[in-house]
């Protein structure tokens, strides 16, 4: 079994009968172990919802989600989070303001059963390019890029195989984005990680991924390789529109 992630005919809903939103409609995709897979499409197209369904943040779903060959049920156990971790877009919202970097990382490690916490915190900080000086800082003492490094360190703490990245650099300056994207590439190589990355920026997805799914109105229109995308070999006209809009932003 060499698929890290397999999704078949996934439907995801929000709300209830009164106002039911069918956010993802019969979506299917397969991400090979060690691959980096992108999800692109305009806002509201269902990209984040796919990641949320995987991590258990969108409980109303049907269809099949398999992680490393094992189908997921309604609940996610500790073991799941040892395999799959997520990094969110907004580094300002994703860290608790009253928790120091040390607390965030120590607690996560403790929760996952590690006991050599001191060494691991130091190692994690080093892995994400933050020196030991950052260990006892609080979020308000960190820049956006530094916060995102902490969020990545926290995601790496349980030693996952798969990282789900939801617009991880959209809130950052391009110079900081470059540092974070380089860091993510290095980490993927060093730890043999599989990435699923959502971005509204096609250039970012093309830089980071080898394949991407194009979404619109909750549906996956097509899955294509980045090489095909670069060569303009698209099966669906919407992909063409998306490519054109990104290349020439001033319509």
């Amino acid at each position, binding site marked *: 079994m060499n698929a890290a992630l397999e999704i078949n005919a996934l439907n995801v809903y929000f709300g209830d009968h009164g106002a039911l939103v069918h956010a993802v409609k019969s979506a299917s995709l397969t991400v090979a172990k060690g691959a980096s897979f992108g999800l692109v499409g305009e806002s509201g197209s269902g990209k984040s919802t796919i990641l949320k369904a995987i991590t258990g943040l969108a409980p109303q779903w049907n269809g099949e989600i398999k992680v490393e060959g094992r189908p997921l049920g309604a609940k996610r156990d500790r073991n799941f989070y040892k395999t799959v971790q997520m990094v969110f877009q907004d580094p300002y919202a994703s860290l608790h303001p009253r928790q120091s970097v040390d607390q965030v990382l120590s607690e996560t490690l403790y929760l996952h059963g590690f006991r050599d916490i001191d060494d691991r915190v130091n190692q994690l900080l080093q892995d994400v390019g933050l020196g030991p000086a950052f260990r006892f800082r609080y979020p308000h003492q960190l820049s956006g890029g530094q916060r995102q490094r902490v969020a990545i360190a926290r995601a790496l703490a349980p030693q996952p195989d798969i990282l789900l990245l939801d617009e991880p650099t959209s809130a950052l300056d391009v110079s900081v984005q*470059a540092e974070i994207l*380089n860091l993510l590439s290095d980490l993927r190589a060093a730890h043999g990680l599989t990435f699923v990355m959502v971005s509204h920026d096609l250039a970012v997805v093309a*830089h980071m991924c080898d394949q991407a799914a194009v979404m619109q109105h909750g549906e996956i229109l097509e899955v294509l390789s980045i090489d095909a995308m670069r060569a303009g070999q698209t099966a669906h006209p919407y992909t063409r529109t998306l490519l054109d809009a990104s290349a020439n*932003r001033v319509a």
Partner: protein
Amino acid sequence: MSTLLDIENLWVRFPTRNGIFDAVRGVSFSLGRERLGIVGESGSGKSMTGRAILRLIRHPGIVEADHINLHGENLLAKSERDMRKVRGEQISMVMQDPKFSLNPVMTIGDQLIEAHRLHAKATKAEARKKALEMLEAVSIRDPERVMGAYPHEMSGGMGQRIMIAMMLIPNPEILIADEPTSALDVSVQGQVLSIMDRLVKERGMGLIFISHDLNLVSQFCDRVLIMYAGRIVEVCDANRLHEAQHPYTRGLLGSLPRFDAPRPRLEVLQRDPSWRDAPSVEGRT
């Protein structure tokens, strides 16, 4: 090109516990009937520059300049009352997040009507007609329905277009747009940009377009000021931004992933302390 606005030696200062923080440090530039871009990283002073022109820096911030001349008249010498007229009639500003700029408990129609009646002596019916026209001018397809809606019922793209409609009511000579499309999808971005473009071309408006997006500014604007640490480090024609010389500008461009030119690693900006100390470059034509 006729100069609408001329700014000489503008400073924006904030007293803090650790002394005075200079957010904008002596910038000088002019604006004609053109699309002038201001780019730079977050914190470089773009928004404070835009707000300072309208004297919209909140207490305890301080604006100082040798002059901020609108048609040769120094805005710094005006009373607050006269400034309100300038803001209502001559210079408008669109903020980054329309949700904070529109009144959440008033329908969009009522806000547009009120804006128009503040500016011109008009009957309610005339103001309503004008409001509908403005919504049409910003390519809102169903203006009657939008008139009766509340801001939270609008998507980001609609909200931003409504903000622009609101800013257009007084027919300003100058529009300062602070990251007006940053929260929008590329497809909607194009629509908002073409609205602003029309205003510059058809009404001869001057536009200050603040953005952190270098590619967008190079495609959309005529001229670009590049800001770093409260100063202008480089000025160039927008369509030649990719030939920019300053290592900061080059570094920003190099850090962008390119769809058409893949490479294994992105360049990381190496900051040089001397960039901060070099005198601000003059942004006049």
